[in-house]
């Protein structure tokens, strides 16, 4: 028989305000098996924990129930408390009387009654708990970073700096990500390439970093400390080991009408290409959709001109298996598709561009060599209208309900740069709100208005109408003058909302990391664990977790790296002891459990059994690898004979809880 102690927490008035904690402690004290029951202001405080420790010692408690906040909050705390007093930490159960009781009920009587039932349920469970010991598994001293943008680059550099091996997987032929496409950065207006490319070079030169460019994560198995990942290296049709990046092939390639994706399709490149001059790795890639050789077997020019003999039209996708202790997700973002915003005429007029396209148009390495020209007729634009919040803060189906965060600042940057370089160009910015929290941010925006004469208009554009003369008639409201403005513009720049990269969703499924409704990865705790996924061993870096600018991204990237380093520095990880186990005497060896196990934790062995009639019989029985089992319990239900059970959540414990609730 267990000797159970019950500890009811007031949580200040959080619980005691709606639950009569004294009555709860008294009622639970009468439950069978309970030898001690008390209440206290803050059980999680040192004094509260000491109260528990003393009771464990004085009453020889074999199990404790803490009626307090959610176990997701303080279960670990009270487990440590129990362990400190010599009680196995798994002899602790939490009755959640705050989140699931005091905070949702207003009537004291109702809340108190429910708290008693919840306490009773925890008592019923703890009476059947058995001491569990966590087993230890070693940690693979290698990290995987998925995404080679500034977030992934920074994380990889920091982890490598601490002396651990890092693999950086990038789906594009080069690392660099979105930052490589950006012209200048706010609020300092220094050139993005100037600060990014040295970091890219660092990555390439760092012995600890292994770049898998033009690669994708194919599958992820395993668990924290021991992930088993398959990386697909997509065929470039160029031998990486031989290519020198000289670029002759790209010059000679006859297929010049291939849209240049790095310039967002604003100009063309050849079918064999190096995305941009500072690409890392600087290796040519053949675009199989456009290469005549790959499509029709005719051409072969690149192969002929390549002095290194690096061209390999028969190259296949390669699969690499690698083990990792931790995985960092840095999959980044993309501007949303604007197909549903026909009012802005984005698909109708080439002179309506997104802000990212404007970055390329203004970039020295861009299609116009850095001179801002209208895409349609390559003339100098005299009037440019910026529209903010295109698709952001938009609760309709085509938009995103969140604020994309970076648009206010980059629009100010664009406006300022244009006014600086082309003083004869009038710039209008339609805004809903200008949001500039950040160091030197508001000053930056004010400079655009005060020093550069950018026309900021509080209001929104309702319609952009391409005119026969090539102008764009922009109709928008100015809420402050209460006028409807009609501006004849040469260009319209849309600050499109940003959304997580489309590859993030399938990746999240592989990683079993959770995502919110907008496909941003959720963090383990919004305030206290912002760079970790709730799935152990998965860390978040950059915009995959939520919109952020470059300084924030870099900060988070380093934070994620610190977390990874902390994990990899551990010699071994204590694994969750709440794992499945099979009763060999009941096991049929039918393989049902093996079929549903997501971790491949179940194997079968032939075992000799002594039969009641004293003969022996060899039977196939299941055996669970506790280091691999994550304790989901799928097998326990698949098992027809009830041989499979889950420690910590056993059939008997759950049924006892059911009974206690329904009593």
């Amino acid at each position, binding site marked *: 028989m267990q000797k159970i102690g019950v500890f009811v927490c007031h949580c200040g008035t959080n619980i005691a305000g709606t639950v009569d904690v004294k009555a709860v402690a008294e009622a639970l004290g009468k439950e069978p098996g309970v030898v001690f029951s008390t209440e206290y202001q803050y059980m999680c405080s040192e004094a509260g924990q000491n109260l528990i420790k003393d009771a464990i010692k004085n009453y020889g408690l074999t199990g404790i129930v803490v009626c307090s906040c959610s176990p997701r909050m303080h279960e670990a705390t009270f487990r440590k408390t129990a362990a400190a007093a010599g009680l196995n930490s798994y002899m602790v159960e939490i009755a959640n009387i705050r989140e699931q*009781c005091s905070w949702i009920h207003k009537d004291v009587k109702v809340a108190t009654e429910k708290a008693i039932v919840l306490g009773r349920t925890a008592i019923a469970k703890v009476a059947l708990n058995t001491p569990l010991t966590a087993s230890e598994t070693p940690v693979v001293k290698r990290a995987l970073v998925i995404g080679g943008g500034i977030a992934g680059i920074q994380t990889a550099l920091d982890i490598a700096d601490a002396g651990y091996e890092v693999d950086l997987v990038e789906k594009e032929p080069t690392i660099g990500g979105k930052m490589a496409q950006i012209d200048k950065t706010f609020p300092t207006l220094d050139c993005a390439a100037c600060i990014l490319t040295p970091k890219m070079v660092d990555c390439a030169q760092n012995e600890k970093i292994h770049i898998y460019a033009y690669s994708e994560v194919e599958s992820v198995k395993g668990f924290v400390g021991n992930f088993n990942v398959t990386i697909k290296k997509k065929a470039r049709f160029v031998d990486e080991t031989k290519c020198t990046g000289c670029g002759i092939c790209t010059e000679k390639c006859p297929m010049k009408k291939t849209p240049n994706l790095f310039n967002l399709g604003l100009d063309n490149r050849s079918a064999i290409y190096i995305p941009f001059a500072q690409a890392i790795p600087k290796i040519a890639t053949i675009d199989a959709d456009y290469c005549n050789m790959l499509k029709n077997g005719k051409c072969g020019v690149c192969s002929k001109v390549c002095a290194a003999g690096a061209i390999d039209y028969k190259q296949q996708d390669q699969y690499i298996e690698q083990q990792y202790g931790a995985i960092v997700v840095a999959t980044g973002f993309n501007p949303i598709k604007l197909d549903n915003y026909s009012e802005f005429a984005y698909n109708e007029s080439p002179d309506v561009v997104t802000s990212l396209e404007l970055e390329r148009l203004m970039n020295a390495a861009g299609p116009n060599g850095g001179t801002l020209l209208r895409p349609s007729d390559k003339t100098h634009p005299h009037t440019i209208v910026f529209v903010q919040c295109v698709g952001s803060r938009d609760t309709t189906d085509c938009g995103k309900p969140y604020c994309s965060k970076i648009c206010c600042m980059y629009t100010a940057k664009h406006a300022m740069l244009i006014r600086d370089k082309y003083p004869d160009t009038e710039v209008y910015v339609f805004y809903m709100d200008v949001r500039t929290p950040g160091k030197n941010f508001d000053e930056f925006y004010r400079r655009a208005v005060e020093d550069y004469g950018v026309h900021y208009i509080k209001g929104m554009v309702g319609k952009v109408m391409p005119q026969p003369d090539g102008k764009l008639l922009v109709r928008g409201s100015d809420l402050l003058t209460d006028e409807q403005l009609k501006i004849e513009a040469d260009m319209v720049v849309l600050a499109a909302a940003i959304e997580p990269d489309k590859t993030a969703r399938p990746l999240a499924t592989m990683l079993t990391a959770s995502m919110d409704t907008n496909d941003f990865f959720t963090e383990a705790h919004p305030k206290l664990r912002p760079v970790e996924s709730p799935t152990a061993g998965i860390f978040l870096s950059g915009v995959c977790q939520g919109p952020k600018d470059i300084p924030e991204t870099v900060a988070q990237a380093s934070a994620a790296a610190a977390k990874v380093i902390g994990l990899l520095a551990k010699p071994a990880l204590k694994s969750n002891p709440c794992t499945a186990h099979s009763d060999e005497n009941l096991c049929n060896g039918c393989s049902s459990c093996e079929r549903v196990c997501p971790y491949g934790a179940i194997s079968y062995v032939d075992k000799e059994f002594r039969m009641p009639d004293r003969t022996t019989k060899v039977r196939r029985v299941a055996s669970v690898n506790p280091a691999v089992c994550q304790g989901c319990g799928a097998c326990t239900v698949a098992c027809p004979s009830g041989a499979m059970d889950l420690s910590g959540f056993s059939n008997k414990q759950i049924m006892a809880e059911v009974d206690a609730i329904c009593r």
Partner: protein
Amino acid sequence: MSMNEFKPKIVAFCCNWCSYAGADLAGTNRLNYPADVKIIRVPCSCRVNPMFILRAFQRGADGVILCGCHPGDCHYTTGNYYARRRMTMLFSMLDYLGIEKERTRVEWVSAAEGAKFAAVMNDFVKTVTELGENKRLEDLRCKK
């Protein structure tokens, strides 16, 4: 007992990773739902054996609801897919035996859906309250 006074007993199985966290969020946001709902924390919706659900009815539960991560979001990758099949089968069998199908339900509630959790519980309690006491799948010995 008149219909007005009838307080159903509702057992809610919630997976640790999504729905239990969703329930916590409902609490954090002070979203009210009836006290008739009592939550049992399980690691995953796939841990819930149909036996547990029958057990709850035997012991006098008037409704049983299973909440898990949205399909595709399972912390254990595939658990809720199995739960989905199992529960579909169980519910279908209960219906086949003439037991009110409204007494059982599966809802996918993510950790971010505190409001959905509260709304689901409010709705479920309402449905079960309208049905009244569970008479078809009760064990008279467990009545007080």
